[in-house]
């Protein structure tokens, strides 16, 4: 079962501020999702190799050749708060 403390922890890692009501709603939804996923545990996977991919492919590469980048204006246009050539983000506190 997912607890309120779990929700607060994950929210902090994701830099999200949740109100009490929101946190409770998230807890309920996450609990429902996890309960659904838990159904998979009912499967008998004895003798099945763990895998991270369903497709039987390995070694998919591209050659080291330069492709055009997106124009800066187009990229910056998506920024909530552009600053000339740069993206502006809230102050980073390191100490």
């Amino acid at each position, binding site marked *: 079962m997912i607890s309120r403390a779990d929700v607060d*922890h994950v929210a*902090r890692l994701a830099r999200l501020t949740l109100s009490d009501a929101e946190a409770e709603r998230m807890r309920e939804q996450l609990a429902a999702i996890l309960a659904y996923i838990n159904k998979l545990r009912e499967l008998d996977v004895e003798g099945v190799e763990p895998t*991270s991919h369903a497709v039987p492919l390995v070694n998919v*590469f591209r*050659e080291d050749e330069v492709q055009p*980048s997106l124009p*800066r204006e187009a990229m910056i246009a998506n920024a909530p708060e552009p600053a000339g*050539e740069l*993206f502006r983000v*809230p102050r980073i506190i390191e100490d």
Partner: protein
Amino acid sequence: MSAVATAAGYEVVIGLEVHAQLSTRTKMFCGCSTTFGAPPNTQTCPVCQGMPGTLPVINRRAIEFGTRTALAFDCTVNASCRFARKHYYYPDMPKNFQISQYEEPLAEHGGLEIDVAGGGVRRIGIQRLHLEEDVGKLVHEGTLETAPSSLVDYNRAGVPLMETVSQPELSSPEEAAAYLRAFRAVLVYLGVCDGNMEEGSLRCDANISLRRRGATELGTKVEIKNLNSFRNVQRALEFEVIRQAAALDAGERIVQETRLWDADRGYTRSMRSKEFAHDYRYFPEPDLVPLELDLAFVERARAALPELPRAGRRRFVEQYALRGAEAATLTGSRALAEYYEATVGAGAGPRPAANWILSELLRVVPGDDEQAVRDSPVSPAHLAGLIRLIDDGTISGKIAKSVFDKMAASREDAATIVGREGLTQVADSGALALVIDQVLAADPKLLADWKSGKTAAENAIVGQVMKATQGKANPALVRDLLKEKLSKT
């Protein structure tokens, strides 16, 4: 400074994590250019910005470079490996996760030989080598403390980064610096990284702990970030040894934490730990299929390995009869080793070639800067030409030094400068005899001393003749003329 800890009865235990930007043309997972110094945010695309619906694709050359490095460090290249997502929310990562490797790195279990104090060699173990993507660069407005906001340039986000973690086997700040030097030399030889620490192509974090001499358990370790030069690695670790020894002496406990090296102020300071909650929630990157590097791929990479610095050093000692320290300097960078061999190849003797490079060339060209050595104003062929002029007696060794400086300034060859400036050694015995007579006539005491057979007087006369001819006299010929003259009197 390790002397301080030694005196206090502590053993220093250091491990280094080195991040090297690979010299690929494009990023790890997209075709954006990796050129350093481009205007901010001009080298990004929807893939490296993490736009929904985009898919990363692995750069083949990055895998080749990683494999090449792993083999040079004597690592086992894993037959299968995969990428993983490392989650953390920080504005230097547009995706809010970094594609890295976790449980299945590219390679493991290697080692690197370093020179240690007293002339010995130690092999420092390498735990693992893995590939990941670099992050963007944060620029702060004003000082960090007062900045109202931070600015981000994402050109660097997605550049291939190779992380190599050593075993905690380095036992002093000096050894840590030696490890980093040897590490850099190998990467530069391999051509997988330009090794430019100022531009951040090579970055280093260190783990350091102290324990009572003889203790078997490791002490609490502290991680130091931001070590961007050989000197700073050593200084930061020296500071930390003293800090930790003093704390332990005072009966304090060392806190496991991340500290930032402040090169300007010369100390490490604690970074607030809650900003770096180590809860990365790794899981296999679903957008990238695993790698299975077969034996043929690995063996091809092994066959393509160039001679590495230490092997080159041994060969230089044997083949050219150089001293160990000379060979070490000449093989300190691949470009310099190539320069030396090109000079010898152009006809210069191995001994004078080494002397000229070590004493003169390295005065005008920084030996650890590959590009600067390749662009040297005095080419190997020109240096060999200069040495030839000395060998055949056209110019004196003394004049040769000033010719070298002129060559470095003008990029001309030695013969051109010597011819134009009339620097050819005076080997005309008639002309020299005349100069000798003038010198002796001007200094009767010298004449008397010389006649009484004083060696110092002969040397003084040769010196004055050299001076009178602006260094162009052939000193051996002057001595012969003096002997002849003395025998006649």
